[in-house]
């Protein structure tokens, strides 16, 4: 697909902000939605809306089919043969909390240790910290090397007989650095430790085949993948699909209920109590189809080119400090302008129609490690172009002048 025709699929991109063309570079926070996704939402409510599972009427069957078809589409997208391993949640944060609460019931014991990394998003820190605080557990943190990539040799040294889980980001939302999953996996497998991969920032940008990566848990959010907000997935391997204790319960998850004893269903539905987010799940499947039609490899290639292009131009601006410069990055660049507050730079660039993010990006431990209050982050999606980067660089230089 041509870039120009891709852009036309996103109605929001055509607008002006402060009389300038919108240049949307805040994709790591959330991506824009293609018309196919927007239409799926409106089609669902216009033609197919009903509560799913157990309904005998036509609409309910239709909605149920669409919902369960979405599960199959999602499983296929991630190379998963058994679609029951795909649980729909409200997003990455919800998924991680479900795993943390579930594991804390039977599996995690006082004194146990969980390994995280310095790069983690707060959503992959706080659920574990809560467990640790409430149960006398401990968090161990993989440090970073001078280039801000994970220190894999230090990682292996953190493993102890008490290590019960490794929970790690696939791609850093602040720096865009890609975790060497094979290294994590080989250590985890050698020591027989379950591991969770936070794919919130990898799933939007690169092919992710879960039957090859084979983590115990994988989580991501639809809204960062051209899909709707309030929707995401929790992938569990076969073991945890049957063994993970549920964190929440209610209607739709049972075979039989009596006040004495309830028998739960097997599979994904066990983790989906109550009426799920039917419309958004169905629209999410459209987002996945949209990405697959372009090709994840193609998306990664396009965004990598943008990263390289922008990094090269930014290296030539002497007032800029970039963090985590790397050849292999997933669509994210973090930087600061020397002696300027990110907030000022972001405020002025917004005036030129450029949407980007400033602050700590929900990674305060990483900010502390970098020795900064915050950074300015630009992040790319399939619809961004080199022309937009040229425009961004031109305006960035101008803003630097205005502030100095």
């Amino acid at each position, binding site marked *: 697909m041509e870039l120009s025709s891709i852009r036309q699929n996103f109605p929001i991109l055509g607008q002006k902000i402060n009389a300038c063309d919108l240049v949307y570079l805040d994709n790591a926070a959330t991506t824009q939605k293609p018309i196919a996704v927007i239409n799926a939402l409106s089609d669902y409510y216009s033609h197919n809306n009903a509560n799913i599972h157990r309904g005998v009427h036509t609409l309910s069957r239709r909605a149920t089919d669409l919902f369960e078809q979405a599960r199959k589409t999602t499983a296929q997208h991630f190379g998963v043969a058994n679609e029951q391993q795909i649980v729909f949640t409200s997003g990455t944060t919800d998924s991680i909390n479900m795993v943390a609460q579930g594991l804390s019931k039977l599996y995690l014991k006082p004194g146990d240790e969980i390994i995280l990394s310095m790069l983690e998003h707060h959503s992959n820190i706080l659920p574990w910290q809560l467990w640790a605080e409430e149960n006398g557990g401990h968090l161990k943190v993989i440090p970073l090397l001078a280039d801000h990539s994970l220190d894999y040799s230090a990682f292996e040294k953190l493993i102890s007989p008490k290590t019960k889980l490794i929970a790690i980001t696939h791609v850093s939302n602040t720096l865009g650095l890609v975790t060497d999953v094979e290294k994590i996996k080989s250590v985890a497998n050698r020591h027989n430790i379950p591991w969770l991969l936070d794919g919130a920032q990898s799933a939007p940008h690169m092919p992710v085949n879960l039957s090859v990566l084979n983590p115990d848990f994988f989580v991501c959010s639809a809204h960062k993948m051209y899909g709707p907000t309030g929707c995401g997935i929790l992938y569990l391997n076969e073991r945890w699909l049957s063994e993970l204790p549920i964190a929440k319960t209610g209607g739709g998850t049972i075979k039989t209920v009596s006040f004495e004893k309830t028998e739960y269903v097997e599979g994904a539905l066990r983790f989906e109590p109550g009426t799920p987010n039917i419309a958004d799940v169905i629209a999410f499947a459209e987002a996945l189809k949209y990405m697959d039609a372009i090709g994840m490899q193609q998306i990664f290639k396009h965004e990598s080119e943008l990263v390289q292009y922008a990094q090269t131009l930014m290296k030539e601006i002497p007032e800029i400090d970039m963090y985590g410069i790397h050849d292999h990055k997933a669509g994210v660049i973090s930087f600061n302008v020397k002696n300027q*507050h990110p*907030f000022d730079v972001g*405020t*002025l660039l917004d*005036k030129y129609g450029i949407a980007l993010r*400033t602050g700590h990006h929900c990674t305060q431990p990483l900010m502390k490690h970098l020795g900064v209050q915050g950074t300015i982050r630009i992040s790319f999606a399939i619809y961004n172009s080199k022309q937009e980067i040229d425009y961004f660089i031109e305006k960035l230089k101008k803003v630097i002048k*205005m502030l100095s």
Partner: protein
Amino acid sequence: MATMGIEEIEKEIIEEFDFFGDDWESKYEHLIELGKSLPLIAAADKTDDKIIQGCQSRVWLNADFDDNGMVYTADSDAIITKGMIALLVRVLSHQNPTDIIRANLSFIDKIGLKEHLSPTRANGLLSMVNQMKKEALKRL
């Protein structure tokens, strides 16, 4: 008391900003200049307990009282925020507490910088205005 009342100063600022018309770049350059020329807050007053937590830019506010009314000094680590602070300090310093509490500060809207006082804005300015009023309330 100050020789000019709050509304008079507001009017003066509006006239100053009218000069820029629709040229937001010059307007922001002016704001940045104001930020740079904001008298420094005494180091002893730039303590953590004087921080007004905005999400991103930090704001320090110190309030005193003398014969001329309230005396505010303030600072921020972001220069645009500092420019806004300079305007607020200029309007509210040396005014009597009653007038400060009543001030609706509509000049911010009239000079086209209202977005900086919106509750979603990550700069702590709205909280600063509230804090300025709270300090005035203590001196009634």
